């Protein structure tokens, strides 16, 4: 079976404005994600996580290498079509929610559908089951400034899911949440994934990563290691990830 997302030999070099300094953010990244998977990508600050996610989200272009989503090369999509492609195929969840404060919760969720030109009846049909699942039905008519961080993030998840995307990209989704909201959100991600939604999450929270079925570790711009959960419990997975991270920062450092 063809993987849903295929990343091949991704390389990204940032050049300073006057071309003086080159910073290699991604050296050679390759991995693939099958449909229905729940993958976490871990790494320290500066390991290239964000660069990778930006490229996967088609917000940035790689220096070389390919990103295939359902066999379609995202790096080759023309600029004018990229927004529509992103809207139809990828759902985003951000650390700082990125809700527009002049829209109600409901309108924030509708935003991608409105952009896609869907009619109002269909939007209403789609939002009903989703909002119930995410527990935000009561706050649909409120505004972002009136609800809690956890509710904001669930709104963002709802907005990501409402287009039925092929894959959800989450960038530190628990970064701005308290521990209770974090638990709720991770539980939610697990449930969504069980329903068949593919999720790719970038994080450096061990707890968040421990909920994924597979964890990729990035260091110095390459995929360094990966572990599968198999039949481990969350706690066992948590331990495994911690050990791996310790190994990465101590033993893995060639110059130490």
């Amino acid at each position: 079976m063809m993987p849903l997302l295929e990343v091949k030999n991704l390389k990204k070099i940032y050049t300073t404005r006057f071309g003086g300094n080159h910073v290699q953010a991604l050296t050679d990244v390759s991995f693939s994600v099958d449909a229905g998977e729940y993958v976490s990508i871990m790494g320290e600050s500066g390991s290239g996580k964000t660069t990778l996610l930006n490229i996967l989200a088609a917000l940035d272009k790689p220096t070389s290498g390919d990103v295939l989503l359902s066999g379609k090369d995202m790096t080759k999509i023309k600029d004018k079509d990229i927004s529509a492609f992103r809207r139809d195929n990828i759902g985003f969840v951000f650390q700082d929610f990125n809700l527009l404060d002049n829209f109600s919760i409901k309108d924030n969720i509708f935003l991608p559908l409105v952009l896609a030109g869907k009619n109002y009846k269909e939007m209403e049909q789609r939002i009903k089951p989703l909002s119930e699942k995410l527990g935000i039905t009561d706050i649909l008519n409120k505004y972002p400034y009136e609800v809690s961080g956890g509710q904001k993030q669930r709104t963002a998840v709802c907005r990501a899911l409402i287009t039925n995307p092929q894959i959800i990209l989450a960038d530190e989704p628990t970064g701005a949440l308290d521990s209770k909201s974090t638990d709720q959100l991770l539980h939610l991600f697990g449930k969504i994934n069980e329903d068949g939604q593919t999720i790719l999450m970038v994080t450096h929270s061990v707890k968040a990563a421990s909920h994924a079925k597979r964890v990729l570790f990035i260091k110095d711009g390459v995929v360094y290691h990966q572990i599968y959960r198999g039949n481990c419990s969350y706690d066992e997975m948590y331990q495994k990830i911690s050990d791996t991270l310790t190994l990465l920062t101590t033993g893995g450092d060639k110059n130490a």
Partner: protein
Amino acid sequence: MRKGLFPSLAWQNIRKNSKFYLPYILTVIGTVAGFYIVNAIASDEGVLRLRGAAYVKLMMFLGIIIIGIFSVIFLLYTNSFLMKRRKKELALYNMLGMEKRHIAGILCYESLYVALIGIAGGLLCGILLHKLVTLALFKLLRFDVPFGFTISTVAIKASVILFTSIIVITLLFNLVGIRRAKPIELLKSSSAGEREPKSKWILALIGVLSLGAGYYIALTTKSAIRALTIYFLAVFLVIIGTYCLFTAISIVVLKQLRRNKKLYYKTKYFIGISGMLYRMKRNAVGLANICILSTMVLVMVSGTLSLYLGTEDMIDRFCPGQIVPQITINSESKNGFQKDIMIEKIKDIIEKNDGKITQFEDYTYLAFVAGKGENYYHTNIENGFNADFAQLCFITQEDFRKVTGKETNLEENEILFFSDTMKDKENIRIETGDYTFDFTIVEHLKSFPSVGNLTAIVDTGYAVVKDEQVLRALYKGQKSAYGEKASGLEWVAIIDTDLKEDDQIKCAREIGNLSQEDVMGDYKGLLVNTRAENSADFYATSGGFLFLGLFLGFLFNMATVLIIYYKQISEGYEDKARFEIMQKVGLPKKEIRCSVSMQILIVFFAPLAVAAIHVAFDFKLMVKLLSLFYLTDNRLTMLCTFGTLLGFAVIYGIVYWLTARTYYKIVSA
């Protein structure tokens, strides 16, 4: 704290915030220069010796007051904007351990620098431009241009005092603001959650009502006197309406639009409507200010421009010939006025001065004030003019033919009639004391030539009657009612010659001296108007008005520009974050840019559009007011209004375009 730190820190602040400070300092310079120039002209003794200078002095005095008030309001406004933007920075100083009195110290130094640069720069500009402005003014006034370059110490003193006080006041405002503020609040102030604007139905209703009332007044006011008294009420209503329109009505309308789900959830409207709601909430008052300032500029410039361009026409109406003698005749006198002898005498005087008469026309009219009824006029006026009253003017058909060339054949009880208010009547009854006249209106005239020195201030009915018999009967009638206060018959001659202006004036003086002689019989007064003298006065007035209109228009324009600039900048900073989010959610960059620039376009051109509507409604009222100045050329006024609107729109557009670039720079940074 070290002594030299405050001044250098203050200087750094000004330089770092130059995006906000530069326009502010430029405003200070502009207003100081404007204030100095008007002051200098008002106190220039050379100007005051010229003919018509009294009018000019009055205008300049008006200008000083308006510019003074304007400067206070406007500088306070821009300062408040400046401080809002800088709250975070000042809070940071506070957090980093600076005490409030230290911040106050820095603010004092900043104000000192602004005052020094602004006032000195303004005075310099003012002194340099003074000469240029004087030249322009004299050109408008048709004065001879004096030589020399003067610096007015009076004006310098006045400017320094006024603007130092204004800056001290703004400083006090800022210091009080700092004292009250808590640093945490200051830091958070700009990131506070955006509350959705509420629909203020009552305010919206008030707005609709006062706009409607203002417009209704403007459209229905019939007479010029009434227009003059009611003008400020109309202006006041429209100003209130404008504020409500931008703050409440706009939001009510947008919210109603949002209720329409089918319409709202379309890409085009979804972002547009919610974006506009957000923008209107933040900018409503600023936009209302822009709108009102623009309306003021438009009305002022178009009004004064048409006044100035219509000066020739005004002079024509007021003084249709080079020399215009007018005599009030007491027709009951046995030793009546002998027209033919008078004409001979006048002709002699002109010939004696080596002149030749190129045109000579004369006519007699009767004019008196009467109370107004449904389709009659009466002379039972109580003390004062409490009743609805009008002015009646009668002329014989022979004289009417002489003036207009129109042949008529009227019977005793037939008239030709012209009146704004009695257009649909077929009969007119005139009750004057012991006599009652019933006239049948043969024809309603479309216009009527100017008669003597009658003005169109009050509602006037002009009637052409059969002959002097009727005229005299009417005279007797009103005499029996008014007694001592009755009007006399007026005899007017319109004389054109081939003489030079100075000689015309000399002839007029000599004609005026005829009143000393006995040959004319009984008369109440002899008044000799000359075109030459009148035209100097008229140009002094209308030129002074135009100058003031242009000068204030320029100043108000500057204010508008500055508000737009500041608005654009603040919009830019606020839109930056929204821009990024929308892009991440999947809105193409181009579309965002398109939609946002569309919104901004609406936001900035709405005030202009509303101003244009205000001006359109004001037009009728303005025409009425201009008629007080003998200006009746509506086409000219219309042209001037359109021209001003067009010119203003172009300037506005250029300013928008220039500031929009700053906006995009901020957004895409």
